[in-house]
C-alpha cells in the first residue's frame, strides 16, 4: 500500500479505537489527591495519602483470551521471574471497571470444567537438551516459536522455544501441560502465532492460547460440542481461523480476533467425507482464505474472499481422486498439487500416480496445469509470499524446489540427508524453514535464500 493508504488506514483505526473507548467516570482531583502509582510532581510537599485507585499496570493478574464463556475466561499462571522472556507480558494492565486486586502473586483460577489448568512458565535459561522440534511458526523474518518435545517424567512433554533473531538463538518460554506420544515424528501438535503476542498450540484433542508471546498458556474448550476435534488452525491479518471435525456432522469453521475473544461459528459446514482421515487445511493470505479438505480424495472446499465470509468452493483436484494440497502467494495467486488416480480415475490429461501442479491467478475460481512434481507423495507444500513462481515441497525423502511455478524442480535438501521431512514453509519470500528427521533426530532447518540452501538450527546456547 502507498503512504496515503497507510496513513488513511492509520487515521481510521486511531479514530475508531478512540471513539469506541468508554472512559470510566472521572472526578476532578481535589487538592492533594494522589491516584495510581505515579506520584505527581507538585510544588507543594504533601504528606503521603493512600493510593485511591489500584488498577492498571501494577496488577499481577494475567488477563487471558476470553475463550468460551463456560470456562470463566480468566486463568492466571505462576510466572517465574528468572527468565526475562517469561516475565515479559506476565503483568498486563486490567481494564477500568474491574476491581483489580492489590499487587499479589498471581493465583491459579480453577475452571469448573475438566480442562487442565494452564501451565507454569519454564524457569530455565536455555532450551533443554534433546529438544526435538515438531512444529514451527514465524511472524516475521526475525521472530518465531518452535514447539518441541522434551523428556519429562510423564514421557515426552511439550516445550516451546522462542527466537527474535531469525533462529540464531533461542530461549525457552512457557508451554502447555501437554504430553506427547513417545518418539513420534508425525507432529501430534502444532504451534501458530498471529503476531508477537498471540499464538496457539493445538493437537486434535486440545487447544491452548497465549496472548503474551508464550509466557502463559490457557486451555480452551474446542468449540462444537463434545467430541469435536481440531482439524487445523491458522491466523492472518489479526484473525484466527479454526476448523473442527465433529462426529457425525460436517466441519465447523470458527474465527476469533487474534488478540483474544470467543470463537464465532461460520454458517458453512463443509463435508468431512467418508474416508478414515479427514484432513482440512486452512490457507490464508491477508483477509482471504481457503479451506481444502482431503480424506483419501478432495471432499470439500471453502473460500473466504477478503474477509466477506466462508462460502462453498470447488477445490482444485476434486476430480483427480487423490490427495491434494494448496498454498497461496497472494489473495489471488494459488498453487496446488494433486495426486492423480489414487482412488478413482485421474484427471483428464494425466496419468495415475503422477503429482500434477495447478496454478490459479484468480483466487481459486479457475486452475490450469503447470507441470508435475517428480515424486510419489507431497507431505508439505509452500509458495513464497508475493512470488508464485517459487515453490518448496516435501516429498518422499527430502525437499524439492521450483522457481518456475512448478514446471521443473531441483533437489534443495537431498533425501539421503534425511530419513524423512515433515514440513516446509516460507517466513518471507527469501527465508524458509523446514522440519526434517535425520539420523540424530528431529531437526529444524533454515534457509535464507528462498530454499536453495539450508542449515540446521541449534536450540541450545553454545
Amino acid at each position, binding site marked *: 500500500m502507498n503512504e496515503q493508504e497507510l496513513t488513511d488506514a492509520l487515521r481510521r483505526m486511531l479514530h475508531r*479505537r478512540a471513539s469506541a473507548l468508554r472512559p470510566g467516570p472521572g472526578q476532578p482531583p481535589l487538592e492533594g489527591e494522589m*491516584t495510581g502509582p505515579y506520584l505527581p510532581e507538585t510544588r507543594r510537599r504533601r504528606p503521603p495519602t493512600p493510593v485511591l485507585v489500584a488498577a492498571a499496570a501494577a496488577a499481577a493478574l494475567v488477563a487471558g483470551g476470553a475463550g468460551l464463556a463456560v470456562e470463566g475466561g480468566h486463568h492466571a499462571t505462576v510466572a517465574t521471574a528468572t527468565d526475562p522472556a517469561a516475565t515479559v507480558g506476565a503483568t498486563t494492565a486490567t481494564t477500568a471497571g474491574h476491581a483489580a486486586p492489590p499487587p499479589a502473586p498471581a493465583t491459579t483460577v480453577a475452571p469448573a470444567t475438566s480442562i487442565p489448568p494452564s501451565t507454569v512458565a519454564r524457569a530455565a535459561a536455555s532450551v533443554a537438551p534433546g529438544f526435538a522440534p515438531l512444529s514451527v511458526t514465524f511472524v516475521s523474518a526475525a521472530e518465531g516459536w518452535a514447539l518441541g518435545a522434551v523428556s519429562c517424567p510423564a514421557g515426552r512433554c511439550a516445550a516451546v522455544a522462542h527466537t527474535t533473531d531469525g533462529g540464531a538463538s533461542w530461549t525457552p518460554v512457557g508451554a502447555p501441560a501437554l504430553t506427547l506420544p513417545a518418539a513420534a515424528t508425525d507432529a501430534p501438535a502444532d504451534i501458530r502465532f498471529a*503476531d508477537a503476542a498471540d499464538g496457539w498450540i493445538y493437537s486434535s484433542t486440545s487447544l491452548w492460547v497465549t496472548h503474551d508471546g508464550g509466557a502463559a498458556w490457557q486451555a480452551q474448550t474446542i468449540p462444537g460440542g463434545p467430541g469435536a476435534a481440531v482439524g487445523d488452525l491458522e491466523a492472518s491479518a489479526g484473525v484466527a481461523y479454526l476448523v473442527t471435525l465433529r462426529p457425525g456432522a460436517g466441519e465447523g469453521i470458527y474465527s476469533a480476533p487474534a488478540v483474544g475473544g470467543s470463537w464465532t461459528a461460520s454458517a458453512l459446514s463443509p463435508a468431512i467425507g467418508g474416508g478414515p482421515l479427514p484432513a482440512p487445511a486452512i490457507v490464508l493470505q491477508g483477509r482471504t482464505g481457503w479451506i481444502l479438505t482431503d480424506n483419501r480424495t478432495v471432499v470439500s472446499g471453502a473460500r473466504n474472499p477478503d*474477509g*466477506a465470509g466462508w462460502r462453498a468452493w470447488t477445490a482444485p483436484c476434486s476430480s483427480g481422486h487423490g490427495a491434494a494440497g494448496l498454498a497461496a502467494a497472494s489473495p489471488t495467486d494459488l498453487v496446488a498439487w494433486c495426486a492423480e488416480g489414487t482412488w478413482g480415475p485421474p484427471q483428464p490429461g494425466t496419468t495415475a500416480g503422477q503429482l500434477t501442479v495447478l496454478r490459479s491467478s484468480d483466487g481459486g475460481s479457475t486452475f490450469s496445469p503447470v507441470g508435475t512434481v517428480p515424486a510419489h507423495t507431497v507431505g508439505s507444500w509452500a509458495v513464497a509470499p508475493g512470488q508464485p513462481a517459487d515453490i518448496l515441497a516435501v516429498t518422499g525423502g527430502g525437499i524439492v524446489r521450483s522457481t518456475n511455478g512448478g514446471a521443473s524442480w531441483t533437489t534443495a535438501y537431498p533425501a539421503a540427508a534425511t530419513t524423512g521431512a515433515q514440513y516446509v514453509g516460507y517466513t518471507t519470500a527469501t527465508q524458509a524453514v523446514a522440519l526434517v528427521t535425520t539420523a540424530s533426530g528431529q531437526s529444524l532447518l533454515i534457509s535464507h535464500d528462498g530454499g536453495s540452501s539450508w542449515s540446521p538450527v541449534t536450540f541450545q546456547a553454545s
Partner: protein
Amino acid sequence: MNPTGVEDHRLGYGVQDEQPAPLTWTDVYRAERDGLVRLAYLITGSQAVAEDLVQDSFIRVMGRIDPGDHPGAYLRRSVVNACYTWHRRDGRRSTVRPATGAGEEPAGPVDPRTPGEELEMWDALNHLDPRRRTVLVLRFYLDLTEAETASLLGWRVGTVKSATHRALADLRRIVER
C-alpha cells in the same frame, strides 16, 4: 497555599478575558478529560493506565497554572510526557499487548470487513517504539502539523519529520508481512 477544594483555583477571569464566565478547574476537567484519556489510550494502549496518567496530569497542571490560562495545551503536553515516562518505566512489561475487555472492543455494530485490518493496525501500533508511536498519534489522530508536534514534544521539526517517516515504515513493515 492551603489544601482545600478546587474553588481555591478559581481566579475569576482568564488572562485574555475570552471566557464570559469564570472558568473553574471543574469546567476544564469536564471539557478536557475524556479527550485526554482517549489520547493517552492511543499512546499507551491501556485504558486503565490512560485514566491514571490523565488524572496525574490534571493534578500536576492544576498546581501550576490557572484554569483560564490555556490549560488544554499544558494538559496535553503533560499527558504526552506522562505517557512517555510510563513507557520507560512500565511500558516494557505492559505493551506486549494491551488488555482487552468490555471497555476496549468497538461498541455497536462493526463492519465485518474491518475488524481484521483494524486489529492488525492497532496491534502494529502496539509494537512501535514509544517515541514513534507518540508521533503517529499526534500527527494522525490529533492531526497536529509537524511544527505543532515539535512544539508539544520539545523536539526540532527535523526530528519530527524523521520520526514520522520511520514510524510509518515500521508500521508498514509489520502490517504488510
